[in-house]
């Protein structure tokens, strides 16, 4: 490809130009401005002067910001883990279902994508609220259990409280993680599905044939072979989760701020564009670092396979 492009530079430029132009105008240029701002200072309410100061980057290491950064990483990490644990069996079910059912199951996974994120998040508010559907369900279950205890004459044993106290989901880390898992799950399932779909099922049968149980087969054959898909799913879930803005804003009720909420505040209420720029870029560097690690691990695997052939 490269050689052909080199042979016919005119064609290369003609086909490449719109894309390159687009990237320059809407990606490189704004990022350059952000980069310049991150080394600048507010000189008036609307003006930023690039002075080459490192003050904005120093402020990232203030305990308050570090705490938020750490929380973002923790929430993203837990959400990713949950996505993998829930997503893997789902991907496995889809990958092993009949050819006729597959496209429908995949469609069901993709369906939420086509609904506006804001609407989906408000829908979650309705479910997770103190008087939300989830608590309603729990109240109902609690009542049912109490009745059951009454019938077997154990209602005085103090096994259950008289009254169910609604659980607070909104404004807690748990609620935010719930929301992030909900949003990220399809991203986790698709790469897992694609690696499981290609797997030779006779490898799993061979393992069982040789005396392994289901769990051992999962641990020693299925999981190691699915590892590239698991890594992709983890990266593809973790990175957007780290930069989540809407979910912590709505489900966190301003009490579970993640790093993106701080960035947003710098550009809006705090009107501190230089600091916001520095934070944005730092988040970008973390993302790049993760993608680089992923690329390296891919390259190493590819090299190993090549050496063997």
């Amino acid at each position, binding site marked *: 490809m490269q050689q052909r492009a080199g042979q016919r530079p005119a064609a290369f430029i003609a086909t490449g130009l719109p894309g390159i132009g687009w990237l320059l105008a809407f990606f490189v240029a704004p990022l350059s401005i952000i980069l310049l701002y991150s080394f600048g200072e507010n000189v008036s309410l609307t003006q930023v002067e690039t002075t080459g100061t490192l003050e904005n980057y120093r402020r990232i290491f203030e305990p308050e910001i570090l705490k938020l950064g750490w929380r973002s990483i923790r929430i993203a990490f837990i959400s990713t883990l949950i996505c993998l644990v829930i997503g893997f069996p789902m991907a496995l079910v889809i990958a092993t279902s009949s050819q006729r059912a597959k496209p429908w199951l995949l469609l069901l996974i993709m369906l939420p994508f086509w609904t506006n994120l804001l609407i989906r998040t408000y829908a979650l508010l309705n479910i997770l609220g103190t008087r939300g559907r989830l608590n309603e369900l729990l109240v109902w279950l609690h009542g049912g259990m109490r009745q059951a205890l009454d019938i077997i004459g154990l209602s005085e044993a103090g096994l259950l409280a008289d009254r169910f106290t609604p659980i607070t989901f909104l404004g807690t880390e748990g609620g935010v993680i719930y929301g992030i898992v909900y949003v990220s799950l399809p991203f986790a399932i698709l790469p897992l599905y694609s690696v499981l779909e290609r797997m030779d099922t006779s490898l799993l*049968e061979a393992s069982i044939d040789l005396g392994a149980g289901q769990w051992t087969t999962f641990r020693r*054959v299925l999981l190691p072979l699915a590892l590239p898909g698991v890594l992709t799913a983890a990266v593809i879930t973790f990175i957007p989760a780290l930069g989540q803005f809407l979910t912590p804003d709505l489900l966190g009720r301003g009490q579970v701020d993640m790093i993106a909420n701080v960035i947003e505040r710098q550009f809006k209420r705090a009107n501190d564009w230089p600091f916001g720029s520095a934070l944005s870029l730092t988040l970008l560097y973390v993302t790049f670092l993760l993608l680089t690690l992923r690329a390296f691990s891919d390259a190493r695997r590819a090299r190993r396979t090549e050496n063997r052939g």
Partner: protein
Amino acid sequence: MTEPIISIRGVSKRFGGVTAIDNISLDIEAGEIFALLGPSGCGKSTLLRMLAGFEHPSDGSVLLDGKDLTRLPPNRRPINMVFQSYAVFPHMTVAKNVAYGLEMERTKRSEIRTRVAQALEQVQLEGLGDRRPDQLSGGQRQRVAVARALIKRPRVLLLDEPLSALDAKLRDAMRLELVKLQEMSGVTFIIVTHDQYEAMALADRIAVLENGCLRQVDTPRSLYNNPVDAFVADFIGNVHTFDVSKIDLVEGRMRVHADILGPLMIDKPIPEGLLPGVQTGRGRVLTIRPESIGIKTGETYVPGHLTVSGTMGDIAFQGQHSVVEIRINNSRSISAIVDDATARELDGLGHETTVHAHWAVADMHLLESSIN
């Protein structure tokens, strides 16, 4: 009479409305190489997977050493399988692959090491234990799969199309090796194949399957010489068939009218249900194998032989012998297998030269034509 190692009793398998296996009963003796032979879709693979435990019969049962193992899961059967794709674990070394089954039995590490070394030596892979599967050739991967299964000392080894993925040279070598491995280990081998030559060369006994039904079980030689029907005759070797239109009895002997052959007196046991004087014979065929057919240029009479005249067609040279095509009429031709000297002689005659194919009437079989 020794007890069979595997006893398949009235086994059927239905997938939805499709019957994959239709009431098959079959005994397999300990220490033999047994082949399940049939065209694709005949149910042979389903039957093999049932023995391994990956499929469950809809009806009937499978016995091992007289004990019912129909409900036993694959990992608890003393039966191991060599998969058609070999299913060698790509993320483990050769030695790790071979050790896998023993690790599942919680065998001691020192014993695993010695037995893996032995197993690799047995399949001539000594020194390759540290290799990864993608560094091996197809033949070597198959040996890993065989070693990995045999190391568990199973009662029965199942092999799914063991030679089909190998090229012709390797196939012959591997065939001999499998026979040797079977003799050395004493393990009963059950092989699934669609290739009659593979089955005949490897197996002590062959079960011929068609459309989920068992057609015949016998030694390769008996199947070849005494096929029960035209399907088996055609599947074990090649056969020319002549549709029978009418059979009648003349002085206790059968007179068979077959399409281009005319009336022939056949001294064979009279098929059941054939009544004297009654015109039956539909659904039956006369068969002759190409290797039983001779060719001559002049019309000399050979006692006990029948002669069919035609014109010379193509000659396909196949080394020791050649296949000669004789055109009898526009729609019908017969091929005969002749030795090299005859082939050279016939080669000198041009196309369209009249020749005579002849064969012993006694070499023909009167068989039921295949139901389908």
